[in-house]
């Protein structure tokens, strides 16, 4: 059908005269330039430039309403002595590590379950993606309500089951608050990991498993020596994405705790926001945000070389 449409422009009157303009319009390099323009303009102005501007702002003392002066690394020196900043770095690393490990483990488990013959597989798969589709802020508000200190449904259930006597103040005590926000993050991240890995599992040729079974491989050996090596490239990409977006998470913390209690859940992104926007200290906020860049770059490099290794193996 589409092929028939494809022959539409083939009428003789449409043959261009070999004028200069026509030749220019059929030059790949010129057209490539024209076609790239809208994208290049948007990305250079609103992505590349602000990326550099952010690093520059981090070297100034700009505030909201007052142009800044270049102050060198003063912001970074101040942050070096700032215990709240180091706490936020610790929190970010903890949050990212724990949440990523659980997202990966539980996501892989769910993917392996879904890869078996399960009734209503399509519907279940559709339902599982819901937490990832729905606006994070709105589902985080639901978690806020579930974690409420007075009316938490979790506390209510545990009290009724006789497991605890008093309601748990989920977001009021530092370590409990950390655990609570991490759980909410895992909840939101599992669907992405599970469905991506499921797509990877479904591309593994059944003949590999047949061969393994004929050689007498146990289910664990099949998993270890067939599933995992085949899945590695997708795991590398999925976990890179997961780590990057967990590391720079903002929404969940902003809704649930705003960094409290006692800054125990402040991540670098929420601290940057707090110092820059309500605090008005754009330079300092930009310095905190820029401090995330080297770590992100490292994560990308690790994933990149992980993929390279895989390519080399398959050749």
């Amino acid at each position, binding site marked *: 059908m589409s092929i028939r449409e494809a*022959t539409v422009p083939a009428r003789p009157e449409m043959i261009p005269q070999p004028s200069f303009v026509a030749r220019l319009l059929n030059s790949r390099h010129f*057209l490539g330039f024209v076609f790239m323009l809208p*994208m290049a303009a948007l990305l250079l102005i609103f992505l590349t430039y602000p990326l550099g501007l952010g690093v520059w702002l981090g070297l100034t003392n700009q505030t909201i309403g007052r142009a800044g002066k270049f102050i060198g690394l003063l912001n970074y020196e101040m942050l070096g002595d700032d215990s709240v900043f180091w706490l936020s770095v610790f929190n970010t690393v903890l949050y990212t590590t724990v949440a990523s490990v659980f997202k990966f483990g539980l996501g892989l488990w*769910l993917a392996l379950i879904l890869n078996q013959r399960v009734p209503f597989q399509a519907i279940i798969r559709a339902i599982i993606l*819901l937490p990832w589709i729905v606006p994070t802020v709105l589902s985080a508000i639901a978690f806020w309500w*579930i974690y409420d200190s007075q009316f938490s449904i979790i506390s209510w259930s545990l009290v009724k089951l006789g497991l605890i006597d008093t309601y748990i103040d989920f977001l009021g005590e530092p370590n409990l608050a950390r655990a609570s926000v991490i759980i909410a993050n895992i909840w939101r991240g599992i669907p992405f990991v599970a469905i991506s890995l499921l797509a990877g599992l479904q591309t593994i040729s059944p003949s590999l498993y047949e061969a393994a079974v004929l050689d007498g491989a146990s289910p664990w050996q099949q998993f270890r020596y067939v599933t995992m090596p085949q899945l590695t490239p*997708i795991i590398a*990409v999925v976990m890179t994405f997961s780590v990057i977006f967990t590391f720079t998470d903002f929404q969940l913390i902003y809704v649930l705790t705003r960094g409290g209690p006692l800054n125990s859940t402040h991540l670098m992104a929420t601290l940057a926001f707090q110092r820059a926007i309500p605090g008005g200290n754009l330079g300092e906020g930009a310095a905190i945000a820029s401090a995330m860049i080297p770590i992100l770059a490292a994560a*990308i490099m690790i994933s990149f070389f992980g993929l390279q290794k895989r390519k080399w193996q398959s050749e």
Partner: protein
Amino acid sequence: MAKKEKVGMDYLMTVPRRVVTVYIPLAVFLIVLLFPFYWMVITTFKPNKELYDLEHTNPFWIAAPTLDHIEKLLFNTHFPDWFVTTMIVSVASTFLSLFASVTGAYAIQRLRFRGSDMIGAAIFLAYLVPPSILFIPLATMVFDFGLFDTKWALILTYPTFLIPFSTWLLMGYFKTIPFELEECALIDGASRLQILIKIVLPLAVPGLISAGIFAFTLSWNEFIYALTFISSTSNKTIPVGVLTELVEGDVYHWGSLMAGALLGSLPVAILYSFFVEHYVSSMTGAIKE
């Protein structure tokens, strides 16, 4: 032979074993993943009397459902304004991104101009730049351009995370279209623009739908830019408005908050229910490349 039979049996698995290894974990996953939504719905329709009295009622159910919270949300708050703003911003930024992505992806994938490989790699890197390191410099730019507290601030900045994603996805779709089709058209005298509009685009419709609904969803869900670039109550988007405007001091109106969360989630949930396969393919397609 005996070994093979044992493994074969394993593959089919006995019913009790399947229950333990498949059905029970799956049920637990489903309950945990869905509970917050159930809780959203229950709270939305529950009268305050039941919400704040956990001793005499069963909190998991509603004795006397009410529409009070939804009524309050729709008629006593700016929720309708937020809805309209979010819709306009999402649709506009989606179309802007799709236009830029289609031409860009075609150029990178099909025109193979000088440096197109490098630009393809750069697009992938742009995909990995998170909004939380861009919002401070963008805030100063938005302010300097005089766009602060306008829809344009969002329409122009959302493409920064929509374009890399949809370009990457569309490049994958364009790759699958045979070069012969384009060559035939070129020989028949079609220009490159005609080829793009009349041959490549019709064949890439599934990719366009995937990229479009996904971009719409990402815009609908965006938070940090909308929180930073918008200040007046009536200009806010749904995620920002529900969070910042429905809490009066220390008083949380949980009923209306949950009603806002529910109604704000519905548009993407409905869109999702119609295009599940497109969502899955756009999510996994972008990763498999």
